[in-house]
C-alpha cells in the first residue's frame, strides 16, 4: 500500500501555543481513515494545514508523493485534494445547480470562461447533472440553497467536494447538526463514496467513525497519540483515558 496523502513532522504554533506537534500522518490509497480527538486537539488546524489555508512552521505535506506544502488552496483542489466544511459555508443565495456548476467548471478548466454563458457546454452540463442525481439534488437544483432542508444542504456540501473529482476527500464532521430523520441520507452518501476516492474523516461522532473507518488516528494536544485499526484503537488504554477523562461521548 502506498500513502496517497502524507504529512512529515508538521508543526504549527500560534504565538507560544503549539497546536500541531511533529505530526506525521500517512493515509493509504483507498483508505477510509478517521482522525479523531477531543475538543482542542488541533483537528481543525490539521485540516487548514492540509488544504493550504494555513502554512506550517515546519514539515512537509505530500499528495501522491508530490510536495504540495507551498501550493495555494485552489491549486491543491485541482491536484485532487478536496474538502467539506463542518459549519455551513455553502452559498446561501446560489442554487445547487450553480454551486455544483462552479466546481465542475473549475475542474474542467472552464471557470475562467467569460464569453460562453453558463449552460452552453455539454460536458459541463452532463457532469453537473450526474453529480446532482447521485446526491439526490436534481429535484431541488433550482431552489436557493438557503431554503433547502439542512440534510440536503449537507448532501450538497459533499456533492460540491466530489464535483472537484478529488483523489483525497477530507470530510469535516459531515453529519454535524443533522437531525436524526435526515442522518441516514448523509451516512448513505458517505458510505457510497467511490472506492477510488481516499477519505480522511474528521469526526466527533464515534458511531459514525467506527462504522465507517478502517483506520483511526487519535490526535491529542496537536500530536499523534495512537494510530491503528478501529478495534485496536477502541481497546487502547491511552485512548480510553483521554475520552473517559474528558467524560466525552466515546
Amino acid at each position, binding site marked *: 500500500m502506498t500513502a496517497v496523502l502524507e504529512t512529515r513532522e508538521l508543526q504549527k504554533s500560534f504565538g507560544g501555543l503549539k497546536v500541531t506537534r511533529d505530526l506525521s500522518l500517512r493515509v493509504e490509497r483507498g483508505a477510509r481513515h478517521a482522525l479523531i480527538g477531543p475538543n482542542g486537539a488541533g483537528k481543525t488546524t490539521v485540516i487548514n494545514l492540509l*488544504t493550504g*489555508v494555513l502554512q506550517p512552521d515546519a514539515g512537509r505535506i505530500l499528495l501522491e508523493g508530490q510536495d504540495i506544502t507551498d501550493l*495555494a*488552496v*485552489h*491549486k491543491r*483542489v*485541482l491536484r485532487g485534494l*478536496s*474538502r467539506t*466544511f463542518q459549519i455551513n*459555508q*455553502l*452559498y*446561501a*443565495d*446560489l*442554487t445547487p*445547480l*450553480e454551486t455544483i*456548476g*462552479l*466546481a465542475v*467548471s*473549475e*475542474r474542467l478548466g*472552464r*471557470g*475562467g*470562461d*467569460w*464569453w*460562453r*454563458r*453558463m*449552460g*452552453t457546454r*455539454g460536458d*459541463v*452540463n*452532463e457532469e*453537473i*447533472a*450526474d453529480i*446532482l*442525481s447521485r446526491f439526490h439534488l*436534481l429535484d431541488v*437544483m*433550482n431552489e436557493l440553497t438557503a431554503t433547502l432542508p439542512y440534510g440536503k444542504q449537507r448532501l450538497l456540501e459533499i456533492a*460540491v467536494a466530489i464535483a*472537484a473529482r478529488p483523489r483525497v476527500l477530507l470530510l469535516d464532521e459531515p453529519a454535524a447538526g443533522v437531525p436524526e430523520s435526515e442522518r441516514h441520507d448523509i451516512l448513505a452518501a458517505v458510505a457510497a463514496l467511490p472506492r477510488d476516492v481516499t477519505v480522511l474523516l474528521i469526526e466527533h461522532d464515534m458511531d459514525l467513525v467506527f462504522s465507517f473507518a478502517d483506520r483511526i488516528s487519535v490526535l491529542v494536544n496537536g500530536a499523534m497519540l495512537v494510530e491503528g485499526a478501529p478495534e485496536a484503537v477502541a481497546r487502547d488504554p491511552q485512548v480510553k483515558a483521554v475520552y473517559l477523562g474528558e467524560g466525552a461521548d466515546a
Partner: protein
Amino acid sequence: MSAAKDVSVSAMAGSRWRVSEVAFWIVVLACPFLFPSRYLIMTDILRLALFTLSLDLILGYAGIVSLGHAAFFGVGAYSAGLLALHGIINEPVLALIVAGLAAMVLGFLTSFLVIRGVDLTRLMVTLGIALLLEALGERFSDITGGTDGLQGIEMQPILGQFAFDMFGKTGFWYSLIVLFVLFLLARRVVHSPFGLSLRAIKNNPLRASAIGIPVNRRLIAIYTLAAFYAGIAGALFTQTTALATLDVFSFERSADLMLVLVIGGTGYLYGGLIGAVVFKMLQEMFQEITPQYWMFWIGLVLVAMVMIGRERIHRWVLWLPNLVIRQITGRKAAVAVPETDAS
C-alpha cells in the same frame, strides 16, 4: 441525457432577456425623441451610467470597494484628450479604445495592490492611487495643462462620417451606442462561468478557493476589465465635451459614483443605469430649488434610502400601480423589482 438538458435550460435561464429589460431599453431609445432639447444632460447621464456600470462590475459582482475609481476615468479622459489634441489618433472610436486600454493597463498594475487586504485597505489604496494621479497631473502641468486642463481639443468626425454638433446630438448617440455595446459585454460576462465565480468570491473567498477557484486571478481580471470601462467613460467625457481638467481625478467624482450605485442598487447591472438617471434628476431638481444646498438634499435622500431600504421604497412606489392592476384584473400583480437585487 435529459437531466443534462434540464441543467442546461436552468443554467441558461439567468441569462435570458426579461421583458422588463427590453422595456427598459425601449424607454431609453424613446428618450431622444421625447426630449430633443436635452441631449447634453442625457449624454451626461449616459457617461455616468457607463462609469457606474464599471463600479458595479467590481463592487456588485466581486465585492471590491473603491473610493478611487476616478483614477481610471481620469486616465481615460486625459488619454483621449491628449490623443486628439496632438493629433496622434484623430478618429474618435479608435482613440476611445486606446484610452480605455490605457486605463486598463493602470487597472491591471494597481489590481495587485487592491486584491490583497480587506475593505478598509481597499478603500485606502484606491483612494490613494486616485490622489496620487491627481497630484502627478498637477506636477506635470506642461502635459496636462494643470488646473486649466487641456485647451483647444478639436474632435474629428466619428468614423470620418459623423461630426460632433453643438446640440450634442451626435455625442448622445455615440455615447448611447458605446454604453449599449459595453452593457451587452458586461451582461455576457456576468452570466458566464467567470461571472458566477465572481459572485462566489464575493460571498465567501475562502470557500471559493476550496472549490478550486483561483480567487486572485479572477479579481485581477475583473478589476482590469472595470478599469477599461471607467477609462472608456472618461474618454467619452473628453470627446463629447472637448474638455479635460484635473477634476476628472477628483475624490468627489469617485464618491459620487458610489452614491449613484447605492441609489440604483448593486449586482444586477441596471443599478448603475437607473442610479445615474435618478442621481442626475435629483441633482437637477434640487439645484433648481436651492442652487447652493443641493448636496444637502442629495445627502438626505441617500440617508433615507439606506435607512428605509431600497426594497421597501420599490414596494411603496409600486403600491399604487399594483393596486390598480389588482382592482382591474382581480389577480396579484407582477412586481417589477429586480430579482437579484443583492446589496
